[in-house]
């Protein structure tokens, strides 16, 4: 394999919303910026085909900031806010208005029928904080803005490891082309990780069909795995999460549906709405995403999203936003099936388990390791967060880059050669496990030993098995081409994260949300204000509890 070398001041790993916002800002400040994206920035990431909710504070709409701030502790963002340092959370919402004005100027429609429209993800009677916006073409718009500022976008390259110097500073990153056998070595003063969410660690809704997921198959937690391997802390990895939405077409965007969740006989299952209401949707799903699973298990299911009684105007409204939320494929499918949403009820289900915890950063996007920044779903999963902290990380990485010299990755020559040999081994091995097989093996272990019920005996057994599987995968994975090699590297990243989920789950001796410990059944209030970190020290994972800074 040949090695291509590239140099920059700021390397954005992942060209989603966070990565592109970081690239735009860093470039504005004069930095030489490269975005390395394993798909194509035009349609990559969790927001690739669109989003329709931008969480934000608009002074002319919301008025008093402190009142708005208190109201944030209800609804979708509540859980997140309880775990966020106050300085970080306030920075987010003190900056969303500026960010949304930029998006508006660049051509992302942030208004609906001429005004700011807030709807969804909110309880009747409470202040709304989710702005409806037409995000279908947000990625082409952000890509254009980055290119106009001189950012170099390197599509179809997966960055799979970071390089440090002897002093522990970031000096580069290694990538592999997903289209041809080629290593790309980036020599850079700083790296911003923005690789998105982490699905795929647990089995999918449909047995064997990994593509039936809420996020595309490229969102495999690469940033978290790379951050851990260079010694940064990851937060609350064991607090895995489950989303919900239309069964069996696994797709997010539950708050875009304008209906009432009802049982088979038409009785609402939640207390919030009795008829379709476009302002609020049905918040039952956000209070309990597991309700669909609970109803099924107890024999009371199924539960349907019932649009009966929706007005023509509200139906049109809902369909418009479904398209912008990135769900046109669901609508096309319903149309082809002849489903009339005014009369039919769509069954909803609880989806697969995903990793919710992420890289620990401050509001500047700093990870604690010199030259390493992170933003977007690698940190916390949500849209305006990615935009705001991508911007912040880009600004701070560019300023940092001004203070250091361009490093020489020659210092890491041995490491680069070793990684290249590892890639070549996977490509040249004649017999072994394809990535699909290795991933299925990982997922069954995650589910059986660190799934819906966890305990010391299950977790300690699982940690042993994970260790064996990882070793085996490292010495037996095979790839027939560069595309399959990318998939193998994704699986190896997932295995690293899987092991950390086990270790973190073992150490959290309480039950919290989907982390259900049969041997520690109580949710310990003393841990509510704490973050659970895992970090590599002397080659081994070490956990630590720290206070959320209020």
């Amino acid at each position, binding site marked *: 394999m040949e090695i291509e070398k590239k140099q920059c001041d700021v390397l954005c790993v992942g060209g989603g919303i966070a990565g592109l916002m970081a690239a735009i800002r860093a470039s504005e400040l004069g930095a030489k910026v490269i975005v390395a994206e394993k798909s194509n920035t035009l*349609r990559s*990431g969790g927001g690739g*085909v669109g989003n329709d909710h931008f969480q934000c504070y608009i002074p002319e709409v919301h008025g008093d900031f402190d009142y708005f701030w208190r109201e944030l502790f209800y609804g979708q963002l509540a859980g997140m806010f309880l775990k966020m340092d106050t300085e970080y959370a306030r920075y987010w919402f003190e900056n969303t208005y500026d960010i949304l004005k930029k998006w508006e100027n660049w051509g992302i429609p942030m208004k609906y029928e001429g005004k700011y429209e807030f709807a969804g993800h909110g309880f009747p009677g409470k202040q709304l904080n989710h702005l409806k916006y037409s995000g279908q073409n947000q990625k082409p718009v952000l890509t254009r803005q980055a290119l106009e500022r001189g950012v170099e976008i390197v599509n179809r390259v997966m960055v799979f490891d970071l390089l440090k110097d002897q002093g522990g500073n970031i000096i580069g990153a290694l990538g592999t082309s997903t289209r041809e056998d080629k290593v790309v070595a980036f020599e850079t003063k700083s790296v911003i990780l923005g690789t998105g969410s982490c699905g795929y660690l647990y089995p999918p809704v449909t047995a064997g*069909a990994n593509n039936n997921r809420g996020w595309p*198959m490229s969102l495999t937690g690469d940033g978290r795995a790379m951050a851990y391997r260079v010694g940064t802390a990851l937060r609350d990895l064991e607090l895995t999460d489950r989303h919900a939405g239309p069964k069996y077409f696994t797709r997010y965007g539950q708050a875009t549906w304008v209906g009432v969740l009802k049982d088979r006989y038409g009785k609402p299952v939640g207390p919030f709405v009795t008829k379709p209401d476009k302002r609020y949707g049905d918040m039952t799903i956000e209070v309990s995403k597991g309700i669909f699973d609970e109803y099924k298990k107890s024999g009371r299911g199924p539960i349907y999203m019932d649009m009966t009684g929706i007005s023509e105007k509200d139906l049109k409204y809902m369909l418009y936003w479904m398209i912008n939320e990135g769900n046109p494929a669901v609508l096309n499918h319903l149309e082809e099936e002849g489903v009339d949403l005014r009369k039919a009820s769509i069954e909803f289900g609880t989806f697969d388990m995903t990793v919710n915890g992420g890289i620990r950063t401050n509001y500047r996007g700093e990870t604690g390791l010199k030259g390493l920044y992170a933003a977007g779903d690698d940190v916390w999963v949500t849209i305006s967060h990615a935009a705001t902290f991508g911007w912040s990380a880009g600004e701070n990485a560019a300023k940092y880059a001004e203070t250091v010299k361009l490093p020489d990755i020659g210092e890491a020559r041995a490491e680069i050669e070793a990684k290249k040999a590892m890639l070549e081994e996977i490509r040249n091995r004649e017999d072994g496990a394809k990535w699909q097989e290795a991933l299925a093996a990982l997922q069954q272990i995650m589910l059986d030993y660190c799934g819906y019920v966890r305990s010391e005996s299950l977790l300690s057994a699982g940690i042993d098995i994970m260790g064996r599987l990882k070793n085996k995968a490292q010495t037996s994975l095979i790839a027939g081409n560069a*595309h399959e090699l990318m998939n193998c590297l994704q699986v190896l990243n997932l295995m690293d994260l899987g092991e950390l989920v086990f270790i973190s789950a073992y150490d959290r001796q309480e039950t919290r949300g989907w982390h259900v410990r049969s041997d520690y059944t109580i949710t310990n209030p003393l841990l509510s204000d704490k973050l659970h970190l895992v970090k590599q020290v002397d080659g081994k994972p070490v956990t630590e509890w720290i206070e959320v800074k209020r």
Partner: protein
Amino acid sequence: MPPIINGNLCSGCGKCVEVCPTDVFFGTKKKQTPAVTYPDECWHGNACVLDCPIKGAIKLRIPLTMMVIYK
């Protein structure tokens, strides 16, 4: 499994090959009708359909396992 390309309408412009987030068209040669090399990796996100310049040249077939359940 998806996507399905109408060879009579497709101009071979390569837009779908360029944008597909999961690269299901891996290995497609320039200016040729895209090869659906990895259908199992299609996420059914519709990026190819959205960005295709020719209406009807490409569409998704939703697999039976993903059929929406309704009453």
